[in-house]
C-alpha cells in the first residue's frame, strides 16, 4: 500500500472526477486552472462550501467552495430550472455535486489504498466564516473557472495513523 499520494496525483484525480460530473450531468463550461498546495485557509470566506469526509486506513476531506451565484448556476444546470437565490434546493444540489465528485475521487483512490468510506455531505452557506480540519497539514487546491465564475476544490488525504498527526476530524466552522 502506498504511503504517499502526491499533490499532482490528487489534482489529476479531482480534475477527472469534475470533468465526469460536468459532462454527464451539468453541461457547464469548465476551465481547469493550475493547482497549488496550501496550509489552513487563512482568509474568511463568503459563499457556499460543501464538505465530504473520507475515512478508512486513509482519511481526509474534500470541499467545494463557490460563490452564491455559481451555486445557483450549478443547481440550475443540475435541475434544469433557474435559481435566483440560494435556497434549500440549491444547497442540496451543491451537496450532491460534491458527493459525486468526492465520491468518484474516493473510488479512484480505493484501487491504490483499499476500501474507504464516504460521509454524508455537509453544506454551509454564510458570510465571513472559515473552515478548519484538525490534523490536516496541507490541502491541494484545484481552481476552476466556469465562464467568469471562479470556484475551487480543496482536497487532502493522509494515512489515518500518520506519525505526528491525528487523523483529520470533520471540519469545524469559525465565524468571525
Amino acid at each position, binding site marked *: 500500500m502506498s504511503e504517499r499520494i502526491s499533490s499532482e496525483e490528487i489534482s489529476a484525480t479531482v480534475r477527472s472526477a469534475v470533468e465526469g*460530473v460536468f459532462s454527464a450531468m451539468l453541461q457547464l463550461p469548465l476551465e481547469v486552472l493550475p493547482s497549488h498546495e496550501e496550509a489552513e485557509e487563512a482568509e474568511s470566506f463568503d459563499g457556499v462550501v460543501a464538505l465530504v469526509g473520507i475515512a478508512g486506513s486513509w482519511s481526509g476531506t474534500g470541499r467545494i467552495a463557490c460563490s452564491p451565484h455559481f451555486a445557483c448556476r450549478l443547481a440550475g444546470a*443540475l435541475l434544469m430550472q433557474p435559481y435566483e437565490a440560494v435556497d434549500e*434546493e440549491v444547497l442540496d444540489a451543491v451537496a*450532491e455535486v460534491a458527493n*459525486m465528485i468526492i465520491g468518484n475521487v474516493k473510488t479512484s483512490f480505493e484501487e491504490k489504498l483499499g476500501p474507504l468510506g464516504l460521509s*454524508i455531505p455537509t453544506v454551509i452557506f454564510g458570510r465571513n466564516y472559515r473552515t478548519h480540519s484538525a490534523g490536516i497539514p496541507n490541502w491541494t487546491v484545484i481552481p476552476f473557472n466556469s465562464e467568469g465564475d471562479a470556484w475551487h476544490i480543496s482536497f487532502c488525504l493522509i494515512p489515518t495513523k500518520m506519525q505526528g498527526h491525528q487523523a483529520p476530524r470533520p471540519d469545524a466552522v469559525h465565524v468571525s
Partner: protein
Amino acid sequence: MPLDVLIVDDSAAIRKILHRVLVQAEIPLGKVFEASDGVEALEKLKVEKVGLILSDINMPNMDGIEFLGRLKADDAFKSVPIVMVTTEGSQAKVLQALQLGAVGYVRKPFTAEQIKEKLAGII
C-alpha cells in the same frame, strides 16, 4: 399496466432528476414515490406497492445495502426489482449489492440515457 416506482435517495436533487428521467423514459409509468433513506422507504412500502425501486447506497439512518438486504429477506418484497443508483463505486460494494439481489447498478454521475438503457433491460 402502469409501473409504480419508488426512488430512495437522501438528495432531493437526485430524486427530482430520476423522476424526470423516468417520465422521459417512454415506459408505462404510474405513480412515483420518494423516500430519503431506507427507513422511510420501508415505511412507504408498507402502504404502497411498487414494481421497481431505484436506491442510493450512502444514506443516513439506513443505507441502501441494509435496505436491499431487508427487502430481499421479506417475502412480500423480494420479487421487486431494485437498481442501485449511487456514487459508491467500489467493486466490493457493487458485488455486495448484486449478491444481495440488486438487478442493476448505475454509478453517479449518470446520463439520462444510461438510466433508460438500464431500465430497458429490466422492465
